[in-house]
């Protein structure tokens, strides 16, 4: 890909006979430029994805509630997220007078930046990754847990009791659910014997198609990871941090305009990230679910891995919306009880079970590479 792009520019500038001159200027900065291009290629579709995820959310929620949803702006309301974006951009930025201005301004960035940074190690297809680092899983864990600082700082800097209460709830919740999430990932780590996300996905490549993926042997962990992921992103039914009926909007109650939009972007980028990670860890990433299934396998192998990856992510994200349409919000003590007294002991036991299982001949998920 990189070589083709350079070749194209070489052809273009050679039309004017300037290639050598241009390249002598560009060559030192080329790795940086190429990385920037790749970052844009990830972030721009992500932002569009976030915009249209809000649209999908409103439409799907509406259908599940026997309504129609947005249908006025453009065909079937398809321009609604763009209209919302323009509205948010032109809205007045209100800064509370007793707030800490610096922290108030910086906290939306702290929420959004790690949500975007985590995408740097997410492989979209075999080799299609910005940074193929060996400790990818650790990087993801550390990045997703930085977001909580943004939430706490936002709640503190707003100098408002609702924002503060929301931030406290959110912080406690995100810290509690990080543990079962981490333990669920320890199981994946045991199974894959690698922290490199590309290797984790390739470890799920067997001739059994989707039965070779880790959601089969680690099914309880798949559920736990998904529940913890919903809680991590403060989504319904774990959205006590926002709790519209109790504390207005939680930690971002004092934000308006683009500040609010950044929190929104961060939240939805995190959701899409959780969708992508669940896909990578448990649903075989870009792998074909029918691989090795005779004729079907041969034909479906022609579909590019990116399509499978995105399809699985859509499925997970649809589940997020389905949850929101179905479940009422947990009470705060129930939420803490679920996290500490059910999920954490359960995952701890399951780590031991998986580790023991892997020592027996009944563990067949890492042996049939192919």
């Amino acid at each position, binding site marked *: 890909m990189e070589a083709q792009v350079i070749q194209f520019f070489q052809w273009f500038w050679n039309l004017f006979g300037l290639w050598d001159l241009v390249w002598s200027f560009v060559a030192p900065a080329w790795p940086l430029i190429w990385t920037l291009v790749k970052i844009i290629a990830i972030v721009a579709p992500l932002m569009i994805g976030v915009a249209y995820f809000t649209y999908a959310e409103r439409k*799907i929620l509406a*259908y*599940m509630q*026997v*309504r*129609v949803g947005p249908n006025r702006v453009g065909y079937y309301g398809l321009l609604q997220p763009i209209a919302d974006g323009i509205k948010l951009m032109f809205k007045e930025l209100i800064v509370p007078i007793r707030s800490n201005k610096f922290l108030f301004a910086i906290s939306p960035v702290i929420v959004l930046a790690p949500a975007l940074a985590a995408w740097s190690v997410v492989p979209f297809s075999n080799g299609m990754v910005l940074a193929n680092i060996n400790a990818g899983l650790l990087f993801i864990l550390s990045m997703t847990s930085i977001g909580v600082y943004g939430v706490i700082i936002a709640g503190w800097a707003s100098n408002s009791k609702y924002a503060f209460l929301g931030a406290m709830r959110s912080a406690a919740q995100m810290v509690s659910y990080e543990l079962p999430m981490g333990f669920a990932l320890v199981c994946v780590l045991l199974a894959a014997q690698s922290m490199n996300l590309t290797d984790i996905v390739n470890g799920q490549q067997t001739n059994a198609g989707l039965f070779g993926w880790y959601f089969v042997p680690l099914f309880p962990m798949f559920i736990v990871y998904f529940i913890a992921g919903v809680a991590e992103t403060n989504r319904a039914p774990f959205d006590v941090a926002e709790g519209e009926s109790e504390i207005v909007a939680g930690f971002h109650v004092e934000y308006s305009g683009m500040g609010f939009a950044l929190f929104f972007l961060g939240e939805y980028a995190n959701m899409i990230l959780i969708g992508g990670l669940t896909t990578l860890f448990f649903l075989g990433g870009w792998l074909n679910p029918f691989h090795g299934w005779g004729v079907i396998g041969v034909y479906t192998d022609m579909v590019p891995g990116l399509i499978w990856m995105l399809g699985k992510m859509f499925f997970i994200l649809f589940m997020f919306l*389905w*949850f929101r349409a179905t479940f009422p919000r947990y009470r705060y003590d129930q939420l803490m009880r679920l996290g500490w007294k059910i999920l954490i002991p359960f995952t701890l036991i399951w780590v031991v079970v998986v580790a023991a299982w892997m020592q027996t001949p009944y563990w067949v998920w890492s042996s049939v590479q192919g």
Partner: protein
Amino acid sequence: MNKLFYYVKSFMLWELLKGMALTGRYMFARSITVHFPEEKTPQSFRFRGLHAQRRYANGEERCIGCKLCEAVCPALAIHIETEERDDGTRRTTRYDIDLVKCIFCGFCEEACPVDAIVETRIFEYHGEKRGDLYYTKEMLLAVGDKYEAQIAKDRADDSAYR
């Protein structure tokens, strides 16, 4: 045994799955939304919308300035001033309804002995600046003149139930 069954059931997330099946089913149900400007729900002939002042067939205004509506109005939205006319009858010189105060309870209509003040089926009206929703006697009479046929028909339909 029951307790074991309960634990198994809750770890299988059985009830959550049942709930999701329900919402999943409703996703494909026909939406019951009325697409408002294009579609409208049927209205009762007792619908209480924008007010109107009526006239008799000979063009004489019905209102005799008894101020019963002003007295009964719970929102104090009606303001009336009257004087005696040359022919000895009492008529209003001012009859104002502040639609911003009005709660559309229909008491004025009930109180009126001559069916002068009525509430019509109109509900899609608006004001663009302050004071636009302060309806004077002329405006109310204009509404009545415009929709007299509908108003008379609604009163006739309703009379069967009184």
